[in-house]
């Protein structure tokens, strides 16, 4: 395994308020890993992803992908935000084709490519529908397909399932896990849901300090073949309690 994503001694603050969000943070993520990032609201999780996408610029240190410094807007990572952010005036295939079009692919080609993947993502037959005609789960899938079609090996998912109802969420988690295994991408996943983090990831990184100087790391003792039942194992229940404990200590009531 080689490291795909690295933070070297990164410090960052938003110019608007000045106080550091990250402080001399080091972080390494390996190729093919599924890493979850959990932590209190406002602790800087999204900021970490924004630095990787190049939407924010580091003030000190370096963020590297495959050993190279991040260039803004080079499309080296696929970013999937919390809301689905589908464009309401575009059909499903047009939405999914956005990253292809932005990379300069012709519309016709782009749509053809999208149509190849639609059935694989359980969206066959929906190419001409508009987002308003889809359920929340389906929209999330379109959004994921769109992220996938950036072609990037590193996918950054910022609370993608937080807006879904519990049952749909469970289904989407299982679906995402399958996708990850199938495509062998590296995924960094932000969530507030402890169970979700444990069920999906190889490693869970917990924000326990502010500003973030380091991330507490928990390795999930489960292999690739896992089911929801595994979460009931004693070692996982212990891990879960530990996690909740860490988080609760940090939350102002």
């Amino acid at each position: 395994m080689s490291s795909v994503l690295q933070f070297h001694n990164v410090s960052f603050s938003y110019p608007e308020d000045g106080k550091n969000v990250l402080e001399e943070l080091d972080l390494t993520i390996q190729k093919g890993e599924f890493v979850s990032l959990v932590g209190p609201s406002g602790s800087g999780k999204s900021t970490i992803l924004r630095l990787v996408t190049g939407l924010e610029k580091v003030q000190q240190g370096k963020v590297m992908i495959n050993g190279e410094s991040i260039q803004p807007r080079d499309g080296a990572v696929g970013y999937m935000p919390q809301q689905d952010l589908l464009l309401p005036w575009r059909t499903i295939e047009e939405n999914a084709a956005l990253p292809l079009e932005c990379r300069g692919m012709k519309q016709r080609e782009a749509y053809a490519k999208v149509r190849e993947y639609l059935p694989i993502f359980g969206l066959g037959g929906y190419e001409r529908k508009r987002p308003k005609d889809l359920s929340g789960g389906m929209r999330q899938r379109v959004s994921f397909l769109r992220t996938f079609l950036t072609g990037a090996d590193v996918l950054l998912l910022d609370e993608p399932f937080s807006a879904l109802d519990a049952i749909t969420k469970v289904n989407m988690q299982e679906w995402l896990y399958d996708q990850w295994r199938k495509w062998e991408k590296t995924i960094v996943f932000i969530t507030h849901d402890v169970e979700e983090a444990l069920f999906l990831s190889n490693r869970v990184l917990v924000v326990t300090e502010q500003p973030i100087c380091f991330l507490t790391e928990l390795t999930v003792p489960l292999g690739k073949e896992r089911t929801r039942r595994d979460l009931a194992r004693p070692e996982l229940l212990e891990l879960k309690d530990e996690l909740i404990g860490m988080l609760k200590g940090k939350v102002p009531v």
Partner: protein
Amino acid sequence: MKQFSYLPALIVAIILLTGWEVGARIVNEMYILPSPSAIVQKIWDLRDILFTVHLPATLLVVLIGLVISIVLGVGLAIMMSVSSFAEKAFYPLLVASQTIPTTALAPLFVLWFGYSIWSKVVVTVLITFFPIAVNTYDGFRSTKKEWEELLFTYGASKRDIFLKLRIPASLPYFFSALKVAVPMSVIGAAIGEWLGAQAGLGYFSKRMMTQLDGAGVFAPIFLLSLLAILFVVIVSLLEKKFISWRKDL
């Protein structure tokens, strides 16, 4: 917008019209208060000159005025959305300009442009330019920041963001603006014609006034309203076609 059944409105409209007709017959001074039937009769009598001379004249003013307003308004909106300096420089002026009673300036336009079509076009443009520019601009600004950021991560250029995001997102705003601007453009043309013209429905109405022909005053006004309604309907149809993706349509 809720879907209304139009029956009650129709009933009230008919009651109002009947009241007017009866009232006019009681007052019985056509030059002060012509009856609706007399107005319709007048339109029929004058159909030739109204429809071949005056209506086309007004229509031309309205169309040229609208086209110029749209070009200038959308242009300014684009400028303001692209350059933050332009935004800071023009937006406050644009809003402040709304307090200028432009129609009161119309006589000057007559001095500048004579009784040509341009004095009227200027009034029309001054009246309709503002809603189009401001609404379209608000439309451009209405794109969520998150959308833009997402496109940035896809490596989109400024041009991509403009074409794929801002323009489609601003369409509903643009159409609302148009629906406001269209009746205003008709009113603007009428005012303009009123202040200096040789043809046009506004001119004709004014002329009939000096002849004490009440029905003749109202007949072109009635046509002006019809013209505005027709335009609004056309815009609504275009709107339906272009922004069918809206949830509420």
